[in-house]
């Protein structure tokens, strides 16, 4: 059997199993979160218990929290499908689609790009600064038509360049990309802070941020209300990018090289794949997608660059892992995380439970998806589960280096 067939089979055969594992991991995380909310409710003090189990009173009621978290994110969507909370959910989803697919592309190539956060910061700042500079040249509808694509391009290019650095270091100096990308996240945050403080600060603002972009230089709010910072156009663009990346990975020869490098690096090299070049290109592509996420964040949500960017890059890791590193799956996983991020605002306003809960869930989900063997064991006990030892459900790209299983 040739390599292509076996590699294809490996991915397809486990697609359903992957879905089951992701769903199970999600449920298990929610269950652990449930206990955590109860435990947190014992650590704090309150006048009256919000709920009680087995005669013990707890300050926080997990059911209320989860209700706010998951349903709150949709607002009153049936009465008003364009409501602000739902718009927030979708705009969070849009940015997460980019960071999720950015991580997925790298993982598929067998590279752990933890630096999407930094690549997003670099892309966002570059977009904010260059679009501001270019916005004096054109205006009106023509301005939007020219400036938004220009901003996206700049974000992608800067993200690609920043992503290529750890790629080059890995390809030619064998420097572990997990460490270099994490270090580059710190560097990106500090350098962005410096650049905004010393060079691009808005003189009229006390906060560390750049001058706001004019209305014609950002994504037009299509259908939804302008104040909700969501653009259907940006969302559709993100969806198109996911489909594009899917087609690129599955249908092009470079996409094939990239995937093979992730599953079987030795075989890929034997088959004539230039390994260092693939590493650099994959990281540049991953960085470009992260940079695009930053550009969309600036052009749709912020309207300028502000320091203290939310951790979209780290959420992207969970989104990608939950989606089995599949670009189309990233869309659904991003929506789930968009719900969580938007819902955490509702939780923050409506309950006393800290919104950082979502941060804990983010880690738990990764942990549980990373241990498919656990669910297989349970599965085998409950019903006869088709056990395929050759499938590596989580990170077919992740386990890159080892093939001797």
């Amino acid at each position: 059997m040739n390599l292509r067939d076996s590699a294809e089979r490996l991915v397809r055969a486990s697609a359903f199993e992957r879905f089951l594992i992701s769903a199970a991991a999600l449920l298990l995380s929610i269950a652990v979160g449930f206990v955590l909310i109860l435990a947190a409710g014992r650590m704090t003090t309150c006048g009256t218990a919000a709920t009680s189990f087995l005669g013990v009173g707890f300050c926080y009621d997990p059911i209320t929290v989860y209700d706010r978290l998951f349903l709150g994110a949709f607002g009153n969507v049936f009465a008003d499908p364009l409501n602000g909370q739902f718009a927030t959910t979708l705009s969070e989803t849009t940015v997460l689609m980019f960071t999720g697919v950015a991580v997925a592309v790298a993982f598929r190539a067998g590279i752990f790009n933890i630096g999407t956060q930094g690549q997003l910061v670099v892309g966002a700042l570059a977009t904010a600064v260059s679009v501001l500079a270019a916005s004096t040249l054109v205006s009106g509808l023509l301005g939007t038509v020219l400036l938004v694509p220009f901003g996206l391009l700049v974000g992608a290019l800067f993200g690609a360049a920043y992503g290529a650095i750890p790629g080059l270091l890995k390809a030619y100096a064998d420097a572990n990309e997990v460490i270099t990308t994490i270090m580059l996240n710190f560097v990106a945050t500090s350098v962005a802070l410096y650049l905004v403080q010393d060079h691009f600060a808005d003189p009229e603002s006390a906060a560390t941020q750049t001058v706001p972009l004019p209305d014609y230089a950002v994504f037009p709010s299509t259908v939804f209300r302008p104040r909700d910072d969501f653009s259907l156009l940006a969302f559709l663009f993100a969806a198109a990018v996911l489909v594009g990346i899917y087609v690129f990975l599955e249908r092009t020869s470079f996409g094939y090289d990239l995937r093979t490098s992730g599953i079987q690096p030795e075989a890929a090299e034997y088959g004539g794949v230039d390994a260092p070049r693939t590493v650099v290109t994959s990281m540049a592509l991953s960085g470009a997608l992260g940079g695009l996420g930053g550009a969309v964040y600036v052009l749709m949500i912020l309207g300028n660059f502000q320091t203290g960017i939310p951790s979209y890059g780290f959420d992207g890791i969970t989104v990608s892992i939950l989606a089995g590193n599949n670009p189309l799956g990233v869309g659904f996983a991003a929506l789930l995380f968009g719900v969580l991020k938007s819902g955490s605002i509702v939780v923050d306003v409506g309950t006393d439970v800290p919104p950082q809960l979502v941060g804990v869930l983010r880690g738990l989900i990764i942990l549980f998806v990373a241990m498919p063997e656990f669910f297989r064991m349970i599965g085998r006990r409950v019903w006869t589960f088709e056990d395929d030892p050759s499938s590596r459900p989580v990170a077919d790209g992740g386990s890159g280096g080892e093939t001797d299983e």
Partner: protein
Amino acid sequence: MSSDSFGDLSWRRVVGGAAVLGLAVLAVAGVVAPESDAGRLLDILTAQTTLAATLRLSVPIAFAALGGIFAEKSGVINIGLEGLLIIAAFTGVYLTDVTGSVWMGVLGGVVASTVLAALFAVVCIEFRADQVIAGLAVWLIALGLAPFASQVVYGGPNTTSVETVGTLTIPLLSRIPFFGALFDATPFVYLMFVAVALSWYTINRTTFGRWVRASGENPKALDTAGVDVQRVRYAAVLLSGVLAGVGGAALSLSLGQFTGNGATMVNGKGFIAIVAYLFGNYNPVGALLSTMLFAGLDALQLTLQARDVFAVPKPLVRTIPYVTVIVVLALFGRTRTPEAAGDHYESGDD
């Protein structure tokens, strides 16, 4: 492989030599012209407070690095050290606050870190999770959990201030210029030197150390010899939890507060620890030396920020340790990792 590691070794010498030469040039320039930038930099470098800060900043990194050495030598790459430091740093302060005793706080930090390491061990060893992904999960869980708990208990990502661990000053010796800092430090600093020596001894001179090394290099042989590979790995990962726990608790209890904004007060120290032991070639003494290099740069940048010596903007000064880590990793990335690191080992009769 042998020629590779030899080449690596000579690289180390070249860079080491260049560093010594650079320092010598700086020293001469500083002595000749004390009013120049070189003179002022030399002044900072030779200040007793700089060494004191270096030692203080070394503690969390060194303990995490020692833990990382045990885990990775046994074949389990523990990327989650950062998470262990975070959880220990928070729990240390929390339990100090609750019990009123700093040492109970340290114990609490160690327990919290070890529990999280145990979870990591089960996931990796029992459920064959990809070690890197599981390690990242440990980091992200702690990154969420510590600020969450802090918010619940203290109403914000930062805890209240608690009692700190005082310094232990050895009379007379502490008055030696510069090196006096070695004798006027927190108990954690002394403990760090003891832990380094003990770790070196354990790895190189004890049966357990031999098992750990075999478990990472040739698990099959160890299995054949009748030693349970998985047990050795469990022990090594738990030990990494204990060590990182001391480091994390030391970090927060030296300052008396846990700050949980952004990357938390741990701020990448767990990842720097990984580079420290890679650079130190998995040798505890080497790891300590490279830790002190990174911590020294951190101390230097803190002093530079505080004294405003050069006109370099503060955010850029702050990147010095991170950039150094990247450069070091680029030069020494080819460190030979244990043969079976990252691989799951399944005993034949399973």
